[in-house]
C-alpha cells in the first residue's frame, strides 16, 4: 500500500459523520413532535385553567404563579435549546455510535420529561377557580422521569450502529506489543471500577434526605433516590476484555456493551485521563472531537484509535497489558486476512 492511496480508515483523515438524517430526526424531530402535542393539549385546556396558573410548588403548596403563554414559551425554549445542542453534538461529532446514542437518548429524555411535567402539572388545575388550590405534582415528576427514561432508552437503542469499516493500515511498529506464540491464544480480563465518584452516592443520599425534610414529600424523593442509586450501582463496575474478537467493555448488566473488533483497531495505547477536563465528568461520555469513553476515574486508561475517525478510552488498571495484547492480536489478525 502506498501513501498516495491512503484509505479512509487512516487515523490522519476524518471521514464524514454517518447517519446524520437519523440523528436529526431523533434529536430534533422527535422532541418537536412531543412539544407540538404538549402545546396542543395545553391550548385545548385554555378555557378551563385558572389565570394565573400555578407553576411552582414549595413545602407549603403553590409558591409560584405565571400566565400560560409565558410558561409555555419557557418550556418550549428550554427544550429546543437542549435539542439543538444534542443535535449539534450528534451531527458534528457523532462518528461513534455511542455519541449518537447519547445525543438521541438525552434529547428524547429531555423532551418527554419537559412535556410530561408541563402537561402533568396543568391537568389537575383544570376547573380550579384559584391556582393556589392546586395539589403538589410529586407523582407527575416521578412519572415524567420514568416515562422519559423509557423514551430516552428507546431512542438510544433505535439509533443505527456504525458502518463496519476494516482497517487496512498495519499496526504501527512502535505500538506496544507482547510476546505471543503463533499457535497461542490470549485473553486479558480486568474489572474497571469507579474511584472518587463513590462519593457521588453519599452526596446524593444526603441531598435526597435534605429534600425529604424540606419538601415533606418523602415518597417522591425516596423513589428518585432509589432510581438514581440503582443506575449508579449498575454502572459503577465494568468488565474490560481483550481477546480474539477485539475489545469489549460492559457493565454488570451486560448492556450497554461497547465492542471494538480487531479489524477496526488502528492502534491501542495507554493515556492518562482527566475526567472533568476532557469529558466534563464521569460515566459513558463523549469528549472533544467526538472522542468517546467509559470514564470511571482519573489516571491511566486504555485508549483505542479506531477506523472511521473514532477514538475510545476506558479507565482501567494495568492498561499497558491490555493495550499490548490488543495491538498484538490486531496485528496478527491483519496478517492472516
Amino acid at each position, binding site marked *: 500500500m502506498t501513501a498516495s492511496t491512503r484509505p479512509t480508515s487512516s487515523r490522519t483523515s476524518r471521514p464524514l459523520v454517518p447517519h446524520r438524517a437519523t440523528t436529526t430526526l431523533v434529536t430534533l424531530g422527535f422532541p418537536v413532535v412531543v412539544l407540538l402535542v404538549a402545546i396542543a393539549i395545553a391550548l385545548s385546556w385554555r378555557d378551563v385553567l385558572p389565570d394565573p396558573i400555578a407553576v411552582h410548588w414549595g413545602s407549603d403548596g403553590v409558591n409560584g404563579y405565571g400566565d400560560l403563554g409565558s410558561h409555555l414559551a419557557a418550556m418550549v425554549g428550554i427544550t429546543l435549546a437542549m435539542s439543538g445542542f444534542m443535535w449539534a453534538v450528534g451531527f458534528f461529532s457523532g462518528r461513534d455510535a455511542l455519541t449518537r446514542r447519547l445525543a438521541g437518548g438525552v434529547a428524547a429524555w429531555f423532551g418527554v420529561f419537559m412535556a410530561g411535567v408541563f402537561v402533568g402539572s396543568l391537568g389537575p388545575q383544570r376547573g380550579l377557580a384559584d391556582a393556589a388550590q392546586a395539589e403538589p405534582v410529586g407523582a407527575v415528576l416521578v412519572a415524567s422521569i420514568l416515562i422519559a427514561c423509557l423514551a430516552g432508552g428507546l431512542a438510544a437503542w433505535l439509533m443505527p450502529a456504525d458502518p463496519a469499516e476494516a482497517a487496512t493500515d498495519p499496526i504501527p511498529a512502535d505500538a506496544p506489543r507482547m510476546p505471543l*506464540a503463533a*499457535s*497461542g*491464544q*490470549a485473553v486479558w*480480563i*480486568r474489572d474497571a471500577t469507579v474511584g472518587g465518584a463513590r462519593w457521588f452516592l453519599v452526596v446524593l443520599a444526603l441531598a435526597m434526605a435534605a429534600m425529604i425534610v424540606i419538601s415533606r414529600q418523602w415518597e417522591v424523593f425516596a423513589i428518585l433516590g432509589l432510581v438514581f442509586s440503582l443506575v449508579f450501582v449498575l454502572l459503577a463496575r465494568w*468488565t474490560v*476484555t481483550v481477546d*480474539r474478537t477485539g475489545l469489549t467493555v460492559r457493565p454488570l448488566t451486560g448492556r450497554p456493551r461497547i465492542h471494538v473488533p480487531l479489524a477496526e483497531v488502528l492502534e491501542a495505547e495507554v493515556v492518562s485521563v482527566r475526567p472533568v477536563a476532557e469529558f466534563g465528568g464521569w460515566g459513558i461520555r463523549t469528549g472533544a472531537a467526538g472522542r468517546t469513553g467509559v470514564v470511571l476515574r482519573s489516571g491511566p486508561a486504555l485508549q483505542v484509535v479506531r477506523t472511521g475517525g473514532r477514538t475510545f478510552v476506558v479507565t482501567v488498571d494495568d492498561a499497558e497489558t491490555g493495550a499490548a495484547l490488543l495491538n498484538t492480536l490486531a496485528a496478527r489478525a491483519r496478517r492472516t486476512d
Partner: protein
Amino acid sequence: MLFTIDASAPEPLFEQLAVQVRSAVARGELTAGTRLPSARELAASLTVNLHTVLRAYQDLRDEGLLELRRGRGAVVTARAEQDYLPLREAIDHLVSVSRRLGLAPVTTTALIKEALR
C-alpha cells in the same frame, strides 16, 4: 489478568491456565478477594472447552487457592495470599542476593532448577 495458552505446548491446557493463576498469586498480582473471570467467559474468549477451564479452577480450589461460588464465579482466597507470601519473599530475597553477587539470571535460574530436581 492475562491468560495465555498454547495448544502446541506439551503441557495440557488446564495446567497452563492453573500455572498462570498460581504465578499471579505468587507475584502478588492477584490478591485475596479478587474475582477471576467466569469459566464460561474464559472458555469463550480462548476458544477452549468449558471443562478445560473448570478443570483448572477445580484444581486450584482443591489446592485452596480459589473459592468457587455458584453465580459469583471464582474468588482468590485469603489463604492463597498467605500461603504464597513466604514464597514471594523468598524469591525477592533470592533476586537481591544474586544481584549483589552479580550472577547472570541464567545462572540463578539454573541453580533453582537444579535444586528443584
